[in-house]
């Protein structure tokens, strides 16, 4: 609405941009998990690479001038989008190398690049100063935590489907720990939005989602606990992995699409009209 001053939901980044964060973060997390399990199976690593590629492809479909996409590399000085794009190249190269040659160091180099990739994505959101729910500094640890939780969950599922014997005994414990950290990071982020004065509607959307995320995270932790107590219940760990990945993806969708209210317009003071004095300002729609 051209005449409205109230914060309104951004419409520039749609599901394709959200998918870049969903797939990219989960894929990077999967690559870190793949390095951690040191598995001779290339399954988790390839799944991670495929997810990162899917995310980049989605964002390619989003941009208005896709055939100029190479221009994205022109501003490493300050743009986290450029930095994300720059990191993606060695990440894909190292990831393919790790899948092809294996070895001791390549998976860890890939993992380090994957962490840099998910960090770039988190900083990219934080750099959007027009969206109060994104620019909060706690969004950075939250995006990293959820990326690692999702990636570990998907890595476990990939291992169970492709090579169940390779699933390490500590995978369920790792997953439960990461899901717990993700949940705590989300609660800390949500608690920070009030003092940071984010628009009420953005906080409402996220507060409503908090219950769903908590339910999914608790369910994932319980399912992982079954796998920890009874190592024979590998399927329970798989369910926990799916829940962790689904909850993280859903959260990113909500954050990028539904909670993305603009700053809105505001007056610091209302002007004198004919006579009288100035009056306190106004911030419609907050």
């Amino acid at each position: 609405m051209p005449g409205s001053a109230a914060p309104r939901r951004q419409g520039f980044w749609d599901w394709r941009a959200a998918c870049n964060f969903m797939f990219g973060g989960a894929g990077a997390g999967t690559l870190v998990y793949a390095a951690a399990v040191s598995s001779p199976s290339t399954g988790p690593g390839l799944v991670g690479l495929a997810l990162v590629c899917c995310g980049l492809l989605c964002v390619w479909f989003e941009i208005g001038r896709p055939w100029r996409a190479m221009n994205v590399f022109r501003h490493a000085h300050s743009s986290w989008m450029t930095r994300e794009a720059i990191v993606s190249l060695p990440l894909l190269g190292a990831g393919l190398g790790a899948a092809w040659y294996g070895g001791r160091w390549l998976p860890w180099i890939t993992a380090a690049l994957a962490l840099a990739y998910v960090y770039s994505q988190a900083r990219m959101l934080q750099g959007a100063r027009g969206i109060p729910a994104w620019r909060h500094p706690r969004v950075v640890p939250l995006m990293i935590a959820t990326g690692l939780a999702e990636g570990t969950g998907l890595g476990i599922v990939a291992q169970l489907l492709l090579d169940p014997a390779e699933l390490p005994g500590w995978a369920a414990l790792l997953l439960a720990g990461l899901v717990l950290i993700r949940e705590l990071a989300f609660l800390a982020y949500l608690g920070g939005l009030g003092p940071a004065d984010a628009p009420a509607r953005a906080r409402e959307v996220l507060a409503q989602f908090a219950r769903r995320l908590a339910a999914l995270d608790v369910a994932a932790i319980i399912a992982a606990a079954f796998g920890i107590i009874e190592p024979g219940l590998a399927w329970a760990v798989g369910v926990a992995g799916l829940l962790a990945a689904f909850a993280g993806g859903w959260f990113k969708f909500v954050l990028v699409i539904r909670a993305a209210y603009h700053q809105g317009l505001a007056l610091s003071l209302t002007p004198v009209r004919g006579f009288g004095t100035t009056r306190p300002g106004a911030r419609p729609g907050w």
Partner: protein
Amino acid sequence: MGQAGHERGRIPPVTRYIMVIDLRRCIGCQTCTAACKQANGTPPGVQWRRVVDIETGTYPDVRRTFVPVSCMHCGDPPCLEVCPTQATFKRDDGLVDIDYELCIGCAYCAVACPYQQRFKVQRATFAYGGEPSPAEAAQFDPARLGVSTKCNFCSERIDAGRRTGRTPGIDPEVTPACVNSCISGALHFGDRDDPQSNVSRLLRDNESFRMHQELGTDPGMYYLVDGRP
């Protein structure tokens, strides 16, 4: 600096073009909105300049304030910082502009702008159906499709002022269309770094604020709210 800036048409070594908007005078007529559309040929739904209507207070003590907004041409523009292509750039006179040939249309600038002053249209649209009117056809620029667009303070007029020795904000031919059109004298344009300029005098003589200054954007649009005693 001051003397050089006062000399008509010459760009002083340090120049920061700003807009000063007298909120006491604006009546919300939207003439500036129409003038901008006419001057820049923006498509339906895209308003580089608009006037928002903000009501405050509770009955019977209420106020209505008309607030013209456009790109604030920030001193520290969030859109420039995030732009991955360097399509968004800042000129030496403080204007923030976009190179449409470099822009990839990622819209990162649009979510980074706290003033919601970035626009992007993917397809050509016209006011009266699928065919452009003669005026629209004359102004249609395919380079603006799929990329980010915004107010540029009519930079081509500012540039004409440099070439011809006329002063933006004083000479109408080299002043932004919105300022020229304002029927109530609410809009003013000029060089903040010239202490003798029209806008510097207005800022000295009146109480003003800038929108969302707390975000550290150093916006180049000042709103006057009262005179100084």
